[in-house]
């Protein structure tokens, strides 16, 4: 694989279809061009860049292997993983159990913690050793994957789609005559499908002109395979040649907080507020409702966080946390797709909104159309009354 900066070898496979000679030949047969089949060079390999934290491969990697297995099977190619870190032998075996056929392991003390430049160096060096590029390169949409993927994509000048919720393989017919040198039918394209701006749309994004075709997927969306210890795979050591400029960033300290008070991930009930609350004081009411529950936590939509009504730690949705509580109460949240992708896996969703057409009702199981400033206090009142009754009955029982 060559980087764009390097001159293309004369004997390299013809990646680009020949441009039509518009000046000499006035009549371009667009229809004929659009029907030609174009295959870009690829070894059909699907590669997942594994993510490890303190020596443990993170769940998103197993999810990516699950998605990648499906893509590799459709392409008829191999599924591989690139694992970077230090002392990771067992973790490489684990990747094989989750479906990888090849694991490229870069083991080096300087790779113990993720850092952009050393990881970028090792991965781009490895990919440059490929005579024919892999077909697909996948990373997680995490603070690591979203930091690293764009650097690799820019390095190879290849396409990258962020935060996908679905991946698939299929053909693409490029018929845009404004761009005649790309006209044609491309088989085996990565369909990178993601929520798109403008509410309730999803976009299928393709980049069949360059390989690898890259995408990141959101944690918690793809389904991992059942781990199987009988799966066989090939573990290959990757040389690590870091340069002085790769050490321009040093990690001083890593802190994982036990997020006191805002543990959205483990909450049974999330009481979440949107812009319909009208101001920061609306969250006081939500805190009171959340306090009615044994393990209730307040969440928020991005708009409220952007407006400074509540800290970022509470944000749910595409740019915040993805949650799956037993009960999600959406209050004054219109339910833009960016919010819904963060909460639509909740076991039970209750929506309260004054607008009966709000998209939140499309994902909710139960809804109340009404003024939240009346509905929420009434809900608190009834819950407190029922709680008192239950507690009262229990108290009576214990007396007997």
């Amino acid at each position, binding site marked *: 694989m060559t980087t764009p900066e390097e001159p293309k070898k004369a004997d390299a496979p013809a990646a680009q279809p020949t441009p039509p000679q518009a000046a000499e030949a006035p009549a371009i047969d667009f229809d004929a061009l659009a029907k030609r089949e174009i295959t870009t060079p690829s070894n059909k390999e699907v590669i997942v860049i594994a993510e490890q934290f303190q020596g443990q491969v993170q769940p998103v990697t197993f999810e990516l292997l699950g998605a990648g297995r499906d893509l590799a099977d459709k392409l008829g190619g191999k599924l591989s993983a690139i694992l970077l870190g230090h002392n990771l032998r067992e973790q490489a075996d684990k990747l094989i159990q989750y479906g990888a056929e090849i694991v490229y392991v870069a083991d080096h003390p300087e790779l113990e913690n993720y850092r*952009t430049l050393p990881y*970028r160096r090792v991965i781009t060096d490895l990919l440059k050793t490929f005579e024919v590029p892999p077909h697909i390169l996948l990373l997680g949409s*995490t*603070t690591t994957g*979203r930091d*690293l993927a*764009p650097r690799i*994509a*820019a390095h190879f000048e*290849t*396409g*990258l789609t962020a935060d996908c919720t679905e991946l698939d393989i299929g053909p*693409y017919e490029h018929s*845009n005559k404004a*761009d005649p040198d790309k006209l044609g039918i491309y088989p085996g394209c990565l369909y990178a499908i993601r929520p*798109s*701006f*403008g*509410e*309730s*749309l*999803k*976009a*299928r*994004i*393709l*980049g069949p002109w*360059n390989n690898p075709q890259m995408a990141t997927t959101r944690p918690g969306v793809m389904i991992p395979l059942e781990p199987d210890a009988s799966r066989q795979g090939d573990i290959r050591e990757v040389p690590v040649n870091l340069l002085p400029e790769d050490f*321009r*960033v*040093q*990690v*001083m*300290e*890593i*802190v*994982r*907080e036990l997020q006191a008070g805002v543990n959205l991930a483990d909450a049974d*009930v999330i009481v979440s507020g949107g812009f319909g609350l009208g101001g920061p004081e609306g969250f006081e009411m939500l805190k009171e409702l959340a306090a*009615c529950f044994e393990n209730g936590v307040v969440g928020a939509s991005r*708009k409220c966080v*952007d407006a*400074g009504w509540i800290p*970022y730690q509470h944000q749910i949705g595409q*740019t915040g946390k993805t949650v799956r509580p*037993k*009960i999600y109460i959406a209050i004054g949240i219109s339910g833009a797709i960016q919010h*819904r992708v963060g909460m639509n896996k909740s076991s039970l969703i209750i929506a309260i909104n004054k607008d009966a057409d709000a998209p939140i*009702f*499309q*994902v*909710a*199981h*139960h*809804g*109340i*159309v009404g003024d939240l400033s009346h509905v929420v206090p*009434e809900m608190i009142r*009834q819950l407190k009354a029922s709680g008192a009754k*239950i507690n009262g009955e229990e108290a009576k029982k214990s007396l007997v």
Partner: protein
Amino acid sequence: MSSINNIYVLIKQVPDQSAKAGINPDGTIDRAKAKRMLNPFDRYALQAALHTKQKYGGKVTAISMGPPPAVEILMEAIEHGADMGYLLSDRRLAASDTLATAYALHKVIQHLGQPDLIFCGLQTTDGDTAQVGPQIAERLALPQTSYCEDFRVEDGKVVARRVIEGGYQWVRMEMPALITVANSYHPLAYKSIRGARQVQMLLRNEEAKNNVIKTVTLDEVGADPLKCGLKGSPTIVAKTDKVAEIGGSCVVRQGEPIEVMVRDVLQNTNLREFVSV
């Protein structure tokens, strides 16, 4: 002597998705009709750039790419305290994806000269990719800290706090460098009186305005048009679909007394099982 001379902040004008104007019935956005705004994420980047100037000196240059109305957000940056604005505007940039955008913007930066620090918002509300910042850093061969929520300059290096899953890390980074700013950073402060006066003056004096806010083309920054726009973009949006409705079975209560509607929800869900009061 200040340790910082030049600070760039990259900002984008995006459609205001909360306004109804310009939102087509199929959910797509008509950019010509939509209300325009400064990308909300860029407000944090602008604040970070202005903090850097306040604490360590230097000049803040706001840079944007887009059609001519994007001058509005450069004016906004000046109202908040930026010194200069540059807009890269060229028809050949239409349909640029993140790679092509990063290519074009890195040419502007090379044209203006390497700064000490480049700030970007984490991502935009109309693309949500978070890719352009790191792609520019790659083009310029700079180190980066993404998801930065706090930082200081110490002994000629940036000490930055970076968000990671369930926590954070502190890193020490050499300059020049690129930083993408998380929205857990300080929100943008109010416009300064000085900045507001400056903008009022610029609006009256075309010549002064042209000295502070410059519009440049691809040719002026030496960018290859084949690496920009549709031709320079390796990705294409092949298809958009309405999202399949996930639930579709919502039991909606409407028009009844609130007390009745709330009771009905409590009776038909397991909500009360979680009560502890």
